[in-house]
C-alpha cells in the first residue's frame, strides 16, 4: 500500500513538472545567434563568419524559397555567409500581420505592404539609424538624400523604402503602371487611330463588337475583388488627368486634397460603364469573379478593353505575349492608351519621380542578429551587386558592347523573361523587395540599373509586330504616347500614413464598403434609374465624414511637401 502511494505521488509530480515546463518553454532562443558577430570590425579582410539563416517575410503571394537556392542568392551567401528563408503570404495580409503582432514574434526581416502602419504603431521594427552609421556606408550613400522622408516622428528610421533613385533618372520605355488597355486587333482594324478621349475609346470597342457579331467578345471588363477594388475606383482620377494619388485628387496650385468619390468625374465614368452594360458590352461577372477568373478572361483574348495597372495583369499579359511569339500574331495582345475625358486635358498616367515612403523592408524586434542583416543589406547596395540582381552575370544573362553599354541578346531576353528562369536564377527575388537602387536609377557609366529601362534592351525586346505598332504611331517606345509627368513633390498621396483605427481610417473602410455596394448597382442598373441610385449613394457617402478626411490629407500633403523641399 505504501509503495503504491509513493508511485502515485511520483506520477503526480512528474505530471505537474511537465505541465509547468511546457508553459515556460520557447522564450530564450531569440538571443542564440547574437554572439557570432560580436567584435566584427570593418574592412574586407574580415574573418570568415559562420553561415546563418534568417527568416524573411514578404507580404505577397509566392513560392517559399531559400535565397541560397538561387544563383544570385548563392553568390550573396558566399559574400556574407547569410542565407534568407523567404516566406510568402498565404491569405490576407492584415490578418497575418495581426497574428505576428498579437504573438509579438516576428520573422527577422519583414517586407509588409499596406499593413506597415500597423507594424510601426506596435513597435515591431528596430530603429536602424545607429546600425547604418556603424555598418552601412552604402546604405548611407543611397538613402541619405531621402532621410527627411524616411524618418518617423521620433526621428528614427525603421525601414528602408525601395524607391531611392541613384544617379540620373531614366524613365520607363514601357507602361508599368495604370492605363486603359485595348486589344491590338481593334486598333489594327480601325487603322491605328490616335485615341485620346474616353468616348473615342469606348466607341472603338463598340464598333469592333458590332462588326464581329457571334464571336462572343467582351467589350469591357473590370477587376473588383476585395483587395483590388481600386482598379474600379481609380479610373475617374486618371480620366480627369491626374496620376495615381489614391482616393484623392490634389490640386496643383493650392495642394488641397479632394476625395473624388462623389464627384462628377466618378459619376461620368460609372455612367459610361452603365451605358456599356445596357448595350451588353460590359462583363457583368466582373463584380462576382475572383482575380483568377478575371486574369483567365484577359488571357483568353476575348476581352477588348479594360483599365488596370500593368503589375496586376502582368501574368495574363505575359501569357498572351508568349502565345504571340509562337504564332507571330499579336492581335490578342494589348496596348496601353492615355485616355482622358476631354480632348484638351493633359494625361498624367506616368508616375512623377517619387519616393514612396510607406513601403519598405525593415528588421523586426525578434531579429536574432541585426548587425549581420544590415551588413547584408549594405552589401546589396554596391554597384556590382545591383548589377548582379538586375542584370545578372555578364556573358550569361547580359552582354556589354565596346562602348560599355549593357544589352541583352535576343536569346538572353527570352531566357530572362521566362518565369522559371527568373525563379531559379533569383531575379524574381532580388530585383525588388530588398534595399535597392530605385526604379529609374542609373550607374555612374550611364547604364540603367533596371534592365527593363535600358533603351537597348527595350528596343531589342520589341517584337516585329511591336515595331510595326510603334511605327504606326510614330513613336520609339510605348511610353512616348503618354505625356511627361508634372512635378508633384507630395506624390504619391496614397503613401501618406493614416493612423491605425483613427476616424480617417474608419472613413476609408466605410467608403470602401459603400462603394463595393453601390458601384455594381450603378453599373448594372437600368440606365433610367442611374441618377436615382447615384443620389442615394451620394447621400450615404456624405454621412461618412469626408470633410475631416480631406482636411487630414490636405494637412499631410502640406507636411510632405515641406519635408521634400527641406523646410
Amino acid at each position: 500500500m505504501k509503495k503504491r502511494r509513493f508511485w502515485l505521488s511520483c506520477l503526480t509530480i512528474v505530471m505537474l513538472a511537465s505541465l509547468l515546463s511546457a508553459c515556460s518553454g520557447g522564450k530564450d532562443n531569440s538571443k542564440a545567434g547574437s554572439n557570432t558577430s560580436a567584435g566584427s570590425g570593418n574592412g574586407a579582410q574580415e574573418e570568415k563568419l559562420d553561415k546563418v539563416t534568417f527568416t524573411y517575410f514578404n507580404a505577397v503571394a509566392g513560392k517559399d524559397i531559400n535565397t541560397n537556392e538561387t544563383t544570385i542568392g548563392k553568390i550573396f551567401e558566399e559574400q556574407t555567409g547569410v542565407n534568407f528563408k523567404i516566406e510568402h503570404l498565404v491569405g490576407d495580409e492584415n490578418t497575418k500581420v495581426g497574428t505576428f503582432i498579437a504573438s509579438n514574434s516576428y520573422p527577422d526581416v519583414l517586407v509588409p505592404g499596406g499593413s506597415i502602419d500597423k507594424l510601426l504603431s506596435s513597435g515591431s521594427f528596430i530603429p536602424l539609424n545607429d546600425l547604418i552609421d556603424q555598418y552601412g556606408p552604402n546604405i548611407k550613400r543611397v538613402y541619405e538624400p531621402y532621410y527627411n522622408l524616411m524618418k518617423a516622428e521620433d526621428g528614427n528610421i525603421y525601414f528602408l523604402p525601395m524607391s531611392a533613385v541613384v544617379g540620373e533618372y531614366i524613365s520607363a520605355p514601357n507602361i508599368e503602371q495604370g492605363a486603359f488597355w485595348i486589344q491590338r486587333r481593334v486598333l489594327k482594324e480601325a487603322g491605328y487611330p490616335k485615341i485620346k478621349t474616353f468616348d473615342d475609346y469606348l466607341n472603338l470597342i463598340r464598333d469592333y463588337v458590332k462588326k464581329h457579331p457571334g464571336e462572343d467578345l467582351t467589350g469591357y471588363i473590370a477587376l473588383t475583388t476585395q483587395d483590388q477594388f481600386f482598379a474600379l475606383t481609380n479610373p475617374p482620377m486618371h480620366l480627369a488627368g491626374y496620376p495615381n494619388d489614391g482616393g484623392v485628387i490634389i490640386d496643383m496650385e493650392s495642394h488641397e486634397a479632394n476625395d473624388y468619390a462623389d464627384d462628377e468625374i466618378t459619376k461620368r465614368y460609372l455612367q459610361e460603364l452603365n451605358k456599356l452594360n445596357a448595350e451588353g458590352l460590359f462583363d457583368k461577372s466582373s463584380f462576382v469573379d475572383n482575380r483568377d477568373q478575371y486574369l483567365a478572361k484577359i488571357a483568353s483574348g476575348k476581352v477588348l478593353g479594360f483599365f488596370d495597372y500593368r503589375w496586376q495583369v502582368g501574368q495574363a499579359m505575359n501569357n498572351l505575349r508568349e502565345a504571340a511569339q509562337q504564332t507571330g500574331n499579336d492581335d490578342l495582345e494589348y496596348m496601353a492608351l492615355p485616355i482622358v475625358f476631354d480632348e484638351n486635358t493633359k494625361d498624367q498616367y506616368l508616375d512623377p519621380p517619387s519616393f514612396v515612403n510607406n513601403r519598405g523592408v525593415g528588421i523586426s524586434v525578434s531579429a536574432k542578429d541585426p548587425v549581420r542583416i544590415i551588413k547584408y543589406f549594405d552589401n546589396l547596395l554596391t554597384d556590382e551587386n545591383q548589377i548582379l540582381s538586375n542584370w545578372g552575370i555578364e556573358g550569361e544573362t547580359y552582354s556589354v558592347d565596346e562602348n560599355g553599354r549593357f544589352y541583352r541578346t535576343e536569346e538572353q531576353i527570352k531566357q530572362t523573361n521566362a518565369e522559371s528562369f527568373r525563379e531559379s536564377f533569383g531575379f524574381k527575388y532580388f530585383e525588388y523587395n530588398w534595399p535597392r537602387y530605385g526604379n529609374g536609377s542609373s550607374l555612374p557609366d550611364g547604364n540603367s540599373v533596371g534592365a527593363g529601362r535600358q533603351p537597348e534592351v527595350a528596343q531589342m525586346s520589341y517584337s516585329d509586330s511591336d515595331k510595326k505598332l510603334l511605327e504606326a504611331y510614330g513613336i520609339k517606345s510605348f511610353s512616348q504616347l503618354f505625356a511627361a509627368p508634372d512635378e508633384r513633390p507630395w506624390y504619391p498621396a496614397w503613401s501618406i500614413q493614416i493612423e491605425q483605427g483613427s476616424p480617417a481610417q474608419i472613413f476609408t473602410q466605410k467608403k470602401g464598403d459603400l462603394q463595393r455596394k453601390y458601384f455594381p448597382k450603378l453599373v448594372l442598373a437600368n440606365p433610367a434609374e442611374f441618377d436615382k441610385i447615384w443620389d442615394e449613394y451620394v447621400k450615404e457617402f456624405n454621412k461618412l465624414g469626408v470633410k475631416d478626411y480631406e482636411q487630414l490629407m490636405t494637412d499631410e500633403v502640406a507636411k510632405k511637401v515641406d519635408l521634400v523641399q527641406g523646410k
Partner: protein
Amino acid sequence: MDGGLKGFFHKLSKQRTLVFMSVPFLIWLIIFKYLPLWGWSIAFQDYKPAKGMFEQTWVGLKHFKFLFQDEHFVRVMRNTLAMSFINLVLGFVTAITLAILLNELRKVAFKRVVQTISYLPHFISWVVASSIISTALSADGGIINDVLMWLGIIKEPILWLGEGKYFWGILGVSEVWKNVGWNTIIYLAAMTSIDPSQYEAAEIDGAGRFQRIWNITLPGIKSVVVILLIMNIGNLLETGFEPQYLLGNGMNVDYSENLDIFVLKYGIQMGNFSLSIAAGMFKTVVSFILLFTANHIAKRLGEDRLF
C-alpha cells in the same frame, strides 16, 4: 450531515490521492481556460500591442458603443442569425432524413457507397469548395445556369452571387452539400443502438415501413437529436466565417456580411484588437444565454438535456 466541515475534510484526506491526481488538470484548466479571460480587459482599453498591460489607456465601454451603435450592426446580426437558423434547420432535417434512408437500406455495398460520396465534401476546405460553388454558379458557362437554360426555366443566365436575396439559399445548400454526410454519422450510430426485436415485433403487428420509422426509429434517436439541438443553439452566433467571406462580394454584402466578417474588417484588419474582443465577449454572453434557455426548455418539457 454531522459536522459538515469535519466530514468534508475527512473525506478529502481519505481521497487525497485522487485529489492530487486531479490537481494537474485543474492547473491546466486554470491556465488555458480561465487565465485567458484576463484578456477580456482589452475590450475596455484602447489596446496597443507594443505597450505593457499597465500602460494601456482605459476607455470604458467605448468599443461596445461603437459596435452596437454602428448602423451595420443590426444588419450584421440579422444575417448571422438568419444564416445560422437556416443552417440549423436544414442541417437537422437533411441529416436525419438521410440517416433514416440509409438505415432502411439493406444492401450494405450500396449503403457504403452512398455514405462515402455524401461525406467526402466535408474534407474539402472551404477555399476549394467556394471556388467550385462560384464556378458552378458562374454566369458564363456555369453548370447551374446551363441546366436551367436547357430546361427552359430561365431565359438568361442569372448572376447568382450578385443577387443578395439568393445568398442565404446558396449558402444553405452549400452547407448541406458539404456537411450532410458527416452529420448523419452520429444519427446512424444512434440508430444501431435500437433493439432489432422492436422492429420485428412491429412488423408482426402489421406496421408498415413508414410506421416503423415514425414509431421506432425516430423516438429511438430522440435523445441524441435533443442534445445536439441544445448544443447547436448555443453555437447560433457562430455561423462560420469562411463561406460567407469567400462567396461574399460587394453586391450581396447586405446579406452575406456576418458578425465575424464585420469584426475582421473593423477590428483585426484595422489593428483594433479591442473591438474584436468586445465582439467576442458579446458573442459569448449571447451564446451562454441561448444555451441555458434551450437547456431549461428541454428540462421543462421533460426531455433529455445537456446538464
